[in-house]
């Protein structure tokens, strides 16, 4: 079982890594951010699987934090490109 879990974790990581091509190539800033969000989701999944392998339920809490704060980073990005963000910024 452990082997299967670790193997699938590796597979997820590899797939997500392929997605990072969008981070390197762009072309738009939104493309780059989406690749980052994908990595956030992927590493959450890998974490959860790994947590099951080492039998540490607290890993679920880490995954929770990553999920919540990757959404936050995404919003900080949206805030930047949103046309009605306004506010006298440079």
């Amino acid at each position, binding site marked *: 079982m*452990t*082997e299967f879990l*670790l*193997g699938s*974790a*590796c597979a997820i*990581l*590899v797939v997500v*890594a392929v997605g*990072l091509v969008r*981070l*390197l190539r*762009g072309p738009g*800033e939104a493309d*780059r*951010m989406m*690749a*980052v969000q994908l*990595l*956030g989701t992927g*590493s959450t999944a*890998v*974490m959860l699987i*790994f*947590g099951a*392998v*080492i039998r*540490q*339920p*607290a*890993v679920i*809490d*880490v995954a*929770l*934090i*990553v999920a*919540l*704060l*990757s*959404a*936050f*980073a995404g*919003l*900080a*990005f*949206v*805030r*930047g490109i*949103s046309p*009605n*963000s*306004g*506010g*006298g*910024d*440079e």
Partner: protein
Amino acid sequence: MTAWLDSAALILLIGLAAWVVLGRNTFAAVAGFIAYGMLLGLVWVELQGIDVAMTEAAIGGGLTGALMIGAARRLKSAAPVAPATAGTLVIAIGVGAAMAAILAACVLALPNPAPSLASLVAGNIAATGVQNPITAVLLAFRSMDTLLEAVVLLLALIAVWSLAPDAEWPGRIGVPQTANPNGILAYIARVLPPIGLVIGFYIFWAGADQPGGKFQAATILAAMWLLIISAGLGKTPPVSSRWLRAGLIAGPIGFILVGAYGVASTGAFLGLPAAYAKPLIVTIEIALLPTLTLILALLIPPPLRKRAEA
């Protein structure tokens, strides 16, 4: 098999770091940095540092990421920076490679078995009443560091405040933010914070006995508060606000008062009498939580008025 997973994560991590450092486009580097921060959380889980993983994911990925995105956006209009000269690049490559090589040599030369204070912590943890060894270290064995760290944060905030334009003192620093009240941002800023609040308090409460604690919780709460502010649903308080200032010093002052109580009860500053150790630790954490939340949120600089004063 674990080695495979470790290696895959580390290769990806190094690749991202290289991207952050070498990439030409600043925004792309910042995006890479956020991804790096999230992946770092995973690497820390692999190293079985669950508490550190939480902190790194929350502060490294989330808060620092948001800080950097905002900064990159505001610096876009600045005068372009001249690229490094060939000489500088050669120097930088040489120094970086030498540094990596000597550190790798040090890592390979470390003694076996490695020294550790783990057993010492295990032997003394009962006296603190908590079960999470990291909380025991942070709030009992090395509580001075934690106290000073709260002061570091406060000092950083004072430093950030000292950069405010004179005209805005002592009011609200920066431009109040607005957003379309029917937009997606305002929507999420209404939906996400309650969830974040629950998660934050859960992580806080769990911290005594399992991974978690005040720093991680405060980061989550601060992120939620920032979300509300950036959607225009709330404002940063003016710097002269009594409540704000009281909140900023409550944590360290409360910590010091508990420490002083230690002098009376155990004869040592920051000492914890065995019978009340856990309640006292929880008291310190409760005092620190609002302070840390306020400071972490206020450390993210709000947009300044352009050319505020001549």
